[in-house]
């Protein structure tokens, strides 16, 4: 019963990302360009990423073995990118860097959720496990590069329009500058990204390394 419940939670999510991946490939095959790609998939993307808040619930109730904090950071950064950057700053939607992180996210999520789904069915093909613990080596840096380049491209528009910012003087004696907030966000990737990356590398060594030793004994 527990397995069926867990399966029900992970299966739809991998299918959602597969749908998104197919939509992206089809668009590129039809149009031959990435321009307008974001616009065509944006509703689906927003739906999935907001739906991804469920991730945190999954971690809390133990369906998915990731820690709540790691999942929280991951989901927050995704929601930040989708809603506060690409949705709100229209001029950067056709940047190449957007495709970069969309591809990275899509491939990562399909791999990750297939891994969870097959694990729950106790029928995990070695390829899925291999993919889950090796793809990230390229995908993480690619995704981060895409995100950082997109935020960087957005900076001039943010500065010019003064969007999402509060200036002095005002009744509540507070101010907020979205431009500097974005700079600080970009800087925060420096301590955060290596931690997540090395965590995954350590997981990889534990899981795949252990596997190799057993095979040698056989």
């Amino acid at each position, binding site marked *: 019963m527990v397995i069926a419940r867990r399966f029900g939670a992970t299966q739809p999510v991998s299918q959602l990302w597969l749908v998104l991946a197919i939509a992206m490939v089809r668009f590129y095959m039809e149009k031959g360009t990435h321009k307008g790609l974001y616009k065509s998939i944006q509703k689906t993307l927003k739906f999935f990423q907001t739906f991804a808040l469920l991730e945190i619930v999954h971690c809390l109730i133990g369906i998915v073995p990731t820690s709540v904090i790691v999942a929280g950071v991951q989901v927050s950064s995704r929601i930040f990118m989708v809603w506060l950057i690409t949705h709100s700053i229209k001029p950067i939607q056709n940047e190449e860097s957007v495709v970069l992180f969309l591809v990275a996210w899509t491939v990562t999520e399909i791999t990750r959720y297939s891994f969870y789904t097959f694990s729950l069915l106790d029928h995990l093909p070695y390829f899925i496990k291999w993919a889950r613990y090796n793809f990230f080596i390229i995908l993480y840096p690619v995704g981060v590069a895409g995100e950082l380049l997109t935020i960087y491209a957005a900076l001039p528009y943010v500065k010019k329009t003064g969007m999402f910012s509060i200036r*002095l*003087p*005002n*009744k*509540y*004696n*507070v*101010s907020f500058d979205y431009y500097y907030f974005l700079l600080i966000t970009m800087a925060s990737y420096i301590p955060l990204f290596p931690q997540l990356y090395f965590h995954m590398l350590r997981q990889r060594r534990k899981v795949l390394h252990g596997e190799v030793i057993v095979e040698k004994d056989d």
Partner: protein
Amino acid sequence: MKHYEVEILDAKTREKLCFLDKVEPHATIAEIKNLFTKTHPQWYPAHQSLCLDPKGKSLKDEDVLQKLPVGTTATLYFRDLGAQISWVTVFLTEYAGPLFIYLLFYFRVPFIYSHKYDFTSSRHTVVHLACICHSFHYIKRLLETLFVHRFSHGTMPLRNIFKNCTYYWGFAAWMAYYINHPLYTPPTYGAQQVKLALAIFVICQLGNFSIHMALRDLRPAGSKTRKIPYPSKNPFTWLFLLVSCPNYTYEVGSWIGFAIMTQCLPVALFSLVGFTQVTIWAKGKHRSYLKEFQDYPPLRMPIIPFLL
């Protein structure tokens, strides 16, 4: 007199670290820790956690060897608590920071605001009043740390000082920046709002101090005893009838008063974050009171009368 033998093992590796023979039966854990330090000088007593069980709760310094559930050969497990720093040092550092930092903004030291405002003075009375209140608050805290508080623990982990100072100093700078800004907007309801807020602030400061004195008087100097606090002749202590930790209640009240006085959103946010933290502490304290004392007054809530 029968002597005890004490062996100390590492809680993680079970390696034998130390063997003490001819230990007096009425020796305390503190004395055993001192003996342990002689053989391992890098671990002074505050670094050490000794337990009867590798995963168990730390034994207290006052516990007597004879009274523990051990045979004449006692096995204790050692855990390294890491670099420690005294509570007094942490409190003094984390309180001195905001006092000093706020004044930097109040006097409009160069490179904070635009250069034409260097060393100028605000034309709003409330800004001067706010500086007096903020400074008074932290001077009071420093004096209480030196002369009033009686701490049950001597030390805490070293990393706490970085965490705590970042919090206190960071928020102090953030609040001070807006209150002392040349473009500061005084409260909407003017002098009335400021007077009311000042009254709340002063009452809560007096209340907080009264509670600190009452708690100090519960505990004789140098001891670590714990007793149920009760209201005294001082009206500010009557809050003990309704609340386990009225010092926290008054503290939150002071900051709410300060927020109303300055009508500054960062101050309100600081009050909210502070309230969350002291509520967690108050609930913990309330729970320990309930566990330790069977006759604990049932009407009392942890921090807010009847509610929380």
